[in-house]
């Protein structure tokens, strides 16, 4: 029934990528000049792809909705980027990174892709250093590493708490070099609103100029979607305000299968919400879990005293604290993977132990780390009788050097000093592992249409490990796509420019214009945000950290009715022929309202708990793992790839069976 072909090369896993590269068709440099490629998105994935494709000689047109490519959401990544360099000599290797990623993803990713990712990871660091990315260094001048959740080695490279910013500025600088040479034509403040298919192949896009409102046709021999993740379907998330599913959803509606939409990452360490006006949530980098210890009070009395302001967390003694991650998972402690840490926080808060007014917060405490570092520094400095204050002050300096900007960010938002009192944190939507289905070449089910970075479903299975999204984005853009796309484009050297005055472009443009007019002329009574917030609430309550059949069935119906109401009652003021920020939002929310339903449908189909997807019906009933998520490999070791047929409810499921030849399927234990 399925036409899914993952095109995984034959041979042993270690050799697949090398052999593949040896055998593919290439386009000679002179011919590349006659080939155009469109890249939608300039984050780490799109930015690195655009720069590299241009450098190879293709003519690239790149698009982003912000006013500059440097502002893509990747800029906000804080903690770091993984690579199997083994600079620390702690036993890391390509195989170990591969293994950790497959295990961390709860055995729901494609082995061959993940191995390739681990292989090219080391190149990324070399590349970025050559570009002048100022990674953190040790005193000897060599690169420093930290460790992230779910692994036992230190393989994360970082630039203070601004790793994403520095990597993106690296890719941006590589783009700038090509823009200056005229090899990249950059379209800022443009939003892609449809893909154009000619003879079944992706041959261009329809985009809206967000300044003038003009609808433009752009043609190319291939289209690359690098538009990021869809976490904003929850309304509140750590994503940028403009992050959206539109580009991915438009290609889905034109034939690209959408894979595993229900795999979402709820990040354990975010600043809790404070009120209904809240527009977004702020992440506190996972790197903080290297030094911060997570706890709630052991006794209900203390919880109540804290909530009513009668007790301070620092006044609660060690024996009255429940370091629940250390208690439940002694081997990994505070560094368990994200899904495990988030569910554990929810478990404590649901049981009533949450430490703020809303009952949705736990502590992340640096007291112990400050003392440990302080004593270490005192010894190094030869201070024999250092006072407690001196030790604290020395320790705070170390912590500041490591996480200063994060602490500052926290203080600005919450108005509390996290050096003196523990941070309060709670899980929030952060990343989407699901996305557009792609084969080994990163091509979608539309020939000539590719998806890279967070927009595709690829490498992280049901749960992504920290610091692996940046790695994947740059791997796709710098080192994978530039090879695989050549194999496809080698057939196009004689095609010539794709004309845009054809019926296919005509029709696509008309559909886009009609929809925009519909939104602007609707003149209903409710704002776009009103609908977005309602959708977000259904998603969070019923398709969030914990899901069950009843809730999911209700969610599907509720989303359908919110969608119907949206189209009859949405109010978009202003006009279509000029800058109109409400219109931009309306188009994005309309797509979220369709995706949300497919998301719930996918969650309903997957009656197992795996990674970020937790089904209450599927937990371990006894033994050491009692209460933990229960995966069902016999029935669900597949990728769900959904085909669009008109309405989300009618989407057809195609299964890509996952084969694990190199890693044995085991229960994920972090005990």
């Amino acid at each position, binding site marked *: 029934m399925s036409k899914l072909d993952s095109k995984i090369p034959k041979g042993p896993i270690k050799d697949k990528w090398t052999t593949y590269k040896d055998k593919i068709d290439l386009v000679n440099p002179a011919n590349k000049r006659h080939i155009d490629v469109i890249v939608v998105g300039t984050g780490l994935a799109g930015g690195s792809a655009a720069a*590299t494709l241009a*450098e190879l000689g293709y003519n690239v047109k790149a698009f982003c909705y912000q*006013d*500059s490519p*440097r*502002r893509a*959401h990747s*800029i*906000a990544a804080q903690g770091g980027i993984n690579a199997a360099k083994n600079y620390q000599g702690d036993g890391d290797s390509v195989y170990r990174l591969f293994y950790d990623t497959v295990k961390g993803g709860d055995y729901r990713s494609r082995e061959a892709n993940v191995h390739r990712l681990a292989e090219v990871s080391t*190149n990324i*660091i*070399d*590349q*970025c*250093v*050559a*570009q*002048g990315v*100022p*990674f*953190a*260094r*040790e*005193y000897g*001048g*060599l*690169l420093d590493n930290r460790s992230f959740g779910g692994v036992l080695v230190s393989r994360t490279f970082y*630039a*203070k708490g601004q790793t994403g*910013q*520095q990597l993106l500025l690296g890719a941006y600088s590589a783009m*700038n*070099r090509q823009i*200056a040479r005229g090899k990249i034509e*950059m379209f800022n403040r443009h939003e892609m609103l449809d893909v154009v298919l000619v003879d079944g192949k992706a041959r261009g896009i329809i985009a809206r100029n967000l300044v003038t409102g003009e609808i433009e046709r752009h043609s190319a021999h291939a289209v690359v979607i690098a538009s990021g993740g869809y976490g904003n379907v929850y309304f509140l998330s750590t994503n*940028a*305000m*403009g992050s959206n599913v539109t580009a991915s959803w438009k290609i889905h509606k034109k034939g690209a299968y959408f894979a595993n939409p229900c795999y979402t990452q709820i990040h354990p360490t975010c600043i809790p919400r*404070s*009120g209904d*006006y*809240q*527009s*977004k949530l702020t992440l506190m980098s996972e790197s903080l879990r290297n030094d911060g210890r997570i706890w709630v009070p052991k006794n209900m009395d203390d919880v109540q005293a804290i909530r009513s302001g009668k007790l301070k967390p620092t006044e609660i003694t060690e024996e009255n604290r429940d370091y629940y991650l250390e208690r439940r998972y002694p081997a990994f402690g505070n560094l368990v993977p994200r899904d495990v840490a988030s569910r554990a926080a929810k478990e404590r808060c649901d049981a009533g132990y949450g430490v703020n007014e809303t009952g949705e917060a736990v502590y992340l405490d640096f007291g112990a780390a400050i003392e440990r570092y302080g004593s270490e520094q005192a010894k190094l400095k030869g201070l024999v009788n250092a006072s407690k204050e001196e030790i604290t002050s020395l320790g705070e300096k170390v912590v500041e050097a490591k996480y200063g900007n994060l602490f*500052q*960010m926290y203080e*600005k*938002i919450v*108005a509390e000093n996290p050096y003196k009192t523990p941070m309060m944190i709670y899980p929030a939507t952060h990343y989407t592992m699901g996305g557009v289905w792609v084969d080994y070449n990163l091509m979608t089910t539309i020939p000539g249409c590719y998806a890279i970075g967070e927009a595709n479903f690829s490498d992280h299975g049901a749960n992504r490990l920290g610091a692996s999204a940046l790695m994947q984005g740059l791997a796709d853009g*710098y080192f994978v796509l530039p090879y695989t796309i050549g194999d496809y484009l080698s057939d196009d050297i004689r095609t010539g420019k794709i004309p845009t005055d054809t019926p296919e472009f005509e029709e696509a443009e008309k559909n886009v214009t009609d929809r925009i007019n519909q939104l602007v002329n609707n003149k209903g*009574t409710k*704002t*776009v*945000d009103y609908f977005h917030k309602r959708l977000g609430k259904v998603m969070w309550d019923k398709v969030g950290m914990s899901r069950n059949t009843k809730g999911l069935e209700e969610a599907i119906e509720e989303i359908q009715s919110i969608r119907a109401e949206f189209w009859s009652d949405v*109010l978009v*003021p*202003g006009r279509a022929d*000029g*800058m109109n*920020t409400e219109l931009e939002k309306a188009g994005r929310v309309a797509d979220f309202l369709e995706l949300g339903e497919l998301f719930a449908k996918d969650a309903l189909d997957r009656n197992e708990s795996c990674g970020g997807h937790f089904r209450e019906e599927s937990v371990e009933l006894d033994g050491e793992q009692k209460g933990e998520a229960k995966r069902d490999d016999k029935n669900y070791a597949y990728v769900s790839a959904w085909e669009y047929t008109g309405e989300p409810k009618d989407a057809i499921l195609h299964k890509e069976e996952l084969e694990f030849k190199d890693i044995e399927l085991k229960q994920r234990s972090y005990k």
Partner: protein
Amino acid sequence: MDLVLKIWRQKDAEDKGKMVAYNVTDISEHMSFLEMLDVLNEQLVSSGEEPVAFDHDCREGICGMCSLYINGEAHGPDRGVTTCQLHMRMFNDGDTIFIEPFRAKAFPVIKDLVVDRSAFDRIQQAGGYISVNTSGNTQDANAIPIPKPDADEAMDAATCIGCGACVATCKNSSAMLFVGAKVSQYALLPQGKVEAKDRVMNMVNQMDKEGFGNCTNTGACEVECPKGISLTTIARMNREYLSASVTED
């Protein structure tokens, strides 16, 4: 708290624009400044009016997209923050707040509070990069050890978010802090040395072409910069520029 907002409204680049007063009520001190504007916009949209257009995206002080000149200060009254990180606890009940776009010849207004900062991109395109191919055939990252203090200083310069507050604040609309930050990042790293001369010459020339003014060392930019980019970056750029012009032809 209840506030009066006086906001610059301008339909498009051609429109002359004017200040318009609005009232908002029940503003929580925990809101961010942009969340307060969201409240106003929901109010406006509900009554069928066009919302106030302003740039924003990450809302956590890193993308550099938000701007705004608030009560005569770029990014408002707090220090070391962008507008999206500014909180309403910095204001009092009954305040009148003046909200204008960043103003500079090189940053024309597009609509309301949205300005065009693409001049910054063009300065970067003139030389803000190291000419290394992204092919993956580079040497091992640890083959070039870099003293930690240099790496840290380069990192400090590299944290510029390209927001343009320095330009908006400067009475001459000079972009020296922004350009100085990028030039410094590369000047401090061995990888950047090879093209150092061309880089500083080309970037400074482009800056002049875009219509940014001269630097008269008032230091206002350093005060308003949300990322604490230091005036020493300007000094370093001047040295680089001088030595590049001396050795040229």
